[in-house]
């Protein structure tokens, strides 16, 4: 049996501030031989039945790494154990398993930020785009947002239980005006002289498997990018795209204005209060990638076939259709275009003149089977399909904007 890896709070605080410096191997013990000294993430300890309450702090700011370690913990921790993980990600948009990134995200803006941040008025690292394994909507993460994650047995799962835990932590940090709302989000009621307003400060998503359930959530503490979030999560294709799957619910957001480490400490305290003695406290960083299964999960999560190819069926149409009768703005070119894609792969493409007449020389069937995320330039593709040069330029340029090719071709 692996002796409990106990570590007191003072040690944790010390380690937290020492960030990326090598951590002492205080965790290894003779009875856990393969808790290898080359990696700081120990699969053996995480899966050991005696470690029924575990707490992890991440030193990585890579959203793919943090989500992949979390996913591995969901798979290997003992069935009756409860696991808390806290992590902060570099700027990223993390969207739900069954969402459509072309609909949820302003991809053009992501490309501007990546290519010319100062011109885009962006003073942070480039924004990564990540499809997570859990359900729910699209959220923004950055260094001023702390993510909490609780893995527990299905029979103890409750969508509000750990959001309430975080609310207690916030209340302990003198934020009495926080509460869990009917959408299982944490909101803050703010009363000014004239009116009362409610802002979302934390959103949650869940992943439920046969043996384990995962609840993870964000908490906006001191995000420097608060005012940019709304624009990042607004797609130019919204008025043309009809998507199956899950939409996001827009909410006004706000920072709680609490220090990251104070928040982490307060959440750990509440978690300890709920689950008692903690048998394993551990930390991990990017070296967790040395664990093969974590690396595999990381690669899958970062793959284009997951990010784009997991997209539920959608139809993009420049004109009202029976299924999507919304009125459309008039286009500056004489074409009607409709595209249907499943898993991001084009199943049907129809291009006609605005009056419904066929376009001479055009064979839109060449698009069938193409991956939407691999179309780097619609103008060139339309020209190859036989569309005249000026029309293919105009329509192609517009489609590039709609499908964010500037970003997908990066």
């Amino acid at each position, binding site marked *: 049996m692996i002796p409990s890896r106990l570590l007191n709070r003072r040690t944790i605080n010390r380690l937290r501030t020492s960030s990326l410096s090598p951590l002492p191997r205080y965790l290894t013990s003779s009875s856990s031989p393969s808790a290898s000294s080359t990696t700081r993430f120990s699969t053996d300890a995480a899966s050991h039945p005696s470690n029924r309450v575990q707490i992890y702090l991440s030193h990585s700011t890579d959203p793919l790494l943090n989500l992949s370690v979390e996913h591995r913990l969901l798979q290997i921790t003992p069935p009756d154990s409860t696991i808390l993980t806290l992590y902060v990600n570099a700027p990223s948009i993390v969207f739900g398993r069954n969402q459509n990134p072309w609909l949820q995200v302003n991809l053009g803006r992501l490309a501007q930020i990546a290519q010319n941040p100062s011109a885009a008025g962006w003073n942070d690292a480039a924004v990564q785009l990540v499809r997570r394994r859990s359900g729910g909507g699209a959220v923004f993460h950055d260094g001023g947002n702390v993510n909490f994650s609780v893995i527990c047995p*299905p029979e103890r799962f409750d969508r509000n239980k750990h959001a309430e835990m975080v609310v207690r932590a916030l209340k302990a940090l003198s934020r009495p005006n926080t509460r869990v709302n009917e959408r*299982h989000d944490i909101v803050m009621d703010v009363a000014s002289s004239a009116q009362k307003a409610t802002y979302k400060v934390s959103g949650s998503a869940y992943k*439920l498997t*046969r043996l384990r359930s995962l609840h993870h959530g964000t908490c906006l503490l001191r995000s420097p990018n608060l005012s940019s979030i709304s624009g990042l999560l607004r797609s130019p294709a919204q008025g043309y795209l009809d998507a199956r799957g899950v939409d996001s619910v827009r909410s006004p957001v706000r920072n709680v204005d609490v220090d990251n480490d104070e928040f982490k400490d307060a959440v750990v305290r509440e978690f300890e209060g709920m689950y008692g003695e903690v048998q394993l406290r551990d930390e991990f960083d990017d070296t967790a990638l040395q664990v093969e299964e974590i690396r595999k999960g990381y690669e899958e999560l970062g793959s284009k076939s997951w990010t784009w190819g997991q997209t539920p069926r959608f139809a993009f149409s420049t004109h009202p259709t029976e299924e999507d009768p919304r009125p459309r703005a008039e286009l500056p070119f004489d074409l009607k275009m409709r595209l249907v894609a499943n898993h991001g792969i084009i199943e049907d493409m129809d291009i006609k003149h605005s009056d419904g007449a066929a376009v001479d020389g055009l064979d839109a069937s060449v698009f069938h089977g193409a991956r939407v995320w691999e179309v780097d330039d619609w103008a060139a593709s339309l020209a190859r399909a036989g569309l005249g040069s000026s029309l293919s330029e105009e329509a192609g340029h517009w489609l590039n904007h709609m499908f964010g090719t500037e970003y997908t071709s990066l």
Partner: protein
Amino acid sequence: MASIACSLRAVRPVAMRFAPRAAPVVRMAPLRSFSSSRMTTSYISRMNINRKTNQCPPSLTGLARKYTKDHEWIDLSADRKTGVIGISEYAAEQLGDVVYVELPPASGEWTEQGDSIGAVESVKSASDINAPVRCKVTHANALLEEKPATINQVPEDDSAGGGWIVKVEVDEEGAKQFDELMDAAAYKEFVAE
């Protein structure tokens, strides 16, 4: 599915009352005790439909329906070579509004018992649907792509408009695993626990 089902138990204990609905239940002897006029009606209407198409309803030739602890059901054909899989009324109720169903491709590959054969999303939760027995997916219910709420309405209906999820091929091992699953009465007891 176990997860969701159990999760809300504490919150909504009343919801555990087993509420059988419509067609799928009727043909199974153990479930007859639940009979209601609703079932009878839909049974008859199903018979009519089947008479029209001159086909014997597959479910009437089946052995029975069995349930897993994860709240999936499976109908096995009389020759024990094919089956239909879905999630139980109980699970559907616990999940809440299903907004998306991820269907597996008919990949021609065998899935082991307990491994995922799809997923549903409801109330921000992605939940796995697991294979009740070793099986190979031959058809997925395309209706669920368009109308995921069908799972909430008729989760145990294995007919054309029903909320069944996949049709599968079953081998000897799968058929043996089927025998170990709970029948309707045992499952009813299990969810009432």
